[in-house]
């Protein structure tokens, strides 16, 4: 009797084993890094197919608009990816976006500067702010959170100061209260246009270009490896002769530069420089970086993850929007789906 039980038990164990072996290929498949990274996107796309809002989800225009909408956040996320890989954080990107958007509107609409110097000045201003953060963090040993929080507040104040607290647009009030209209510079309509027969927004191409530049830096250049090494273990990186100070300046400087690129893209799309622009964008940008799979602890991650994260967040917003989901549900669903997607990504044996 006892023997039969044992044999029975063994048989059961063998059966379980066999079943597990049957599942193994599937589990192995789900374990592959690229599958795990893609899984949340697939999940979100399935939601889109199910709730396709009278087939609006199948129209290319919806996807093009999604790419346009997420581009500004995505550009911020590119710079943030570099910073996060070094084990830091940059909270100032949203405010820097507001500051650079105002600056760009002011020099190009109000001062009527030609496009090239206007763009250059704005990019330099953004990078300079980033470098200041970097300097505070690496030379003065401030916590990245504190240093960039200070920069966030400072840059917002700067945006409000240079704009006088008002939106910088084509309409200008003369001292006697009568309005005057300035021309919208051509650079605005060029950047806020579409190419490839109207199938892709120019700002999306700028986003892809930013991804490409950062991808080359991280994957192909020596300085990219320095960024990972600094984030992985700063002490051993320093001992092995990596110039930590300059690595951090590079990361925060590029983050400021990307914020300026995003600021220009924001200004052209709004046709004005709004001193409040970019309020809270840093959180969405951080979400994009993290959703992709880049670790907030530093040392791990990459640009393609960020591209993926942008697609996930972008599609999520778009799907909720085309279905006209009321705001309150939207917030709850976004929270829920983000958690589901990240859990999905973490499937383990």
């Amino acid at each position, binding site marked *: 009797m006892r023997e039969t039980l044992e044999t029975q038990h063994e048989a059961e164990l063998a059966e379980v084993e066999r079943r597990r072996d049957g599942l193994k290929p599937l589990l192995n498949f789900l374990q592959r890094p690229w599958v795990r990274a893609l899984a949340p996107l697939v999940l979100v796309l399935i939601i889109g197919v199910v709730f396709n*809002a*009278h087939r*609006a989800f199948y*129209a290319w*225009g*919806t996807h093009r*608009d999604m790419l346009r*909408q997420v581009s500004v956040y995505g550009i911020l996320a590119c710079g943030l990816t570099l910073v996060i890989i070094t084990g830091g954080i940059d909270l100032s990107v949203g405010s820097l976006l507001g500051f650079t958007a105002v600056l760009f509107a002011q020099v190009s609409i109000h001062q009527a500067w030609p496009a090239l110097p206007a763009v250059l000045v704005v990019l330099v201003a953004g990078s300079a702010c980033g470098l200041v953060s970097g300097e505070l963090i690496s030379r003065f040993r401030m916590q990245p959170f504190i240093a960039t929080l200070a920069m966030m507040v400072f840059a917002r104040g700067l945006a*409000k100061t240079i704009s006088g*607290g*008002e*939106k910088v*647009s*084509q*309409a*200008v*009030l003369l001292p006697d*209260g009568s*309005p005057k*209209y300035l021309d919208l510079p051509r650079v605005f309509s060029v950047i*806020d246009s*579409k190419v490839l027969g109207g199938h892709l927004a120019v700002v999306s191409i700028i986003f892809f270009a930013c991804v490409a530049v950062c991808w080359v830096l991280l994957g192909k250049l020596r300085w990219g490896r320095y960024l990972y090494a600094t984030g992985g273990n700063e002490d051993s990186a320093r001992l092995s002769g990596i110039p930590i100070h300059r690595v951090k300046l590079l990361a925060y400087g590029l983050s400021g530069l990307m914020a300026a690129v995003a600021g220009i893209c*924001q200004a052209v*799309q*709004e*046709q004005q420089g*709004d*001193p*409040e*622009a970019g309020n809270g964008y840093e959180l969405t940008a951080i979400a994009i970086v993290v959703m992709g799979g880049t670790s907030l602890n530093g040392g791990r991650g990459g640009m393609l993850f960020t591209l993926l994260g942008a697609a996930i967040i972008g599609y999520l*917003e*778009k799907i909720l*929007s*085309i279905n*006209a989901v*009321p*705001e309150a549900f939207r917030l709850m669903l976004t929270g829920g789906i983000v958690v589901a997607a990240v859990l999905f990504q973490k499937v383990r044996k």
Partner: protein
Amino acid sequence: MKKLLVMLVALGLAATARAADKKYVIGMSQCNLGEPWRVQMNADVKRAAEKHPNIEVIYKDAQNDTLKQVSQIREFIASKVDLLIVSPKEAVPLTPPVSEAYKAGIPVIVLDRKVTGSDFTEFIGADNKKIGRHLGQWVVKTLGGKGNVVELKGLMTSTPGQDRDSGFREGIKGSDIKIVFEADMKWLEPNARKEMESALATNPHIDLVYGHNDPGAHGAYLAAKAAGREGEMKFVGIDGLPQEGQAYVRQGILSASFEYPTGGDVAIEKALEVLSGKQIPKEIVLDSRVFTKDNVDSGGEWLK
């Protein structure tokens, strides 16, 4: 050097001469200068005050922080201003400091948003519901009683957002106007553009877009223009600020912008009346105007 000395003496004389008149100090407590409409309110106060050399206005901005505004009002009481203009962030938490000022003998004019109770001199504000209703009736008239409308709403947890929505729905009641898409754009232009893109993707024909504020309507216009469909529909917004709504109407972007007056100029007018000892009513509802292409240059048309 001599010239400089003469100038200084002259300045000093001018200052003493001015101090000889009875000069009033007015404290202006603004809840948030992060919004263009409130920037305009301060500008309206300033423009009206500049016409009267015997008043000086001190401005404080609470940066959208209720507690900061509470303490700023107390600072005004402590420095014994002659009159207080308060545009409160919220009713309940700002009632005690306003009441303290009033009881300390400082006349208080409350602008735009109310406080509870009756410890203030005068409330001046516009009526969002009424403006929404007028806008709804204008839409019915303009579209000939039927059509597809997209409504891009302000923050729906805020009273202005709720009133601009419910007023509009009262205005279109009984007509064949259909709201085919509605979304909360939280007063923000980039959000309005996003939501409008979704409205365009899901609706083959739209007759009119109603933005709860002008930047919202403008964002919707940019989305429709990017889709090549801006000619298909009209755009209407609320606020009618000179650099925003009125400018968009002049440029032919909005068909109409309904003014939500700041009352800044009226507040100064009333302040002078109070300071000269006149009795003023407890509440004033501001009239508002509609700006269209035909009337924007002549100052808009008053709504009845």
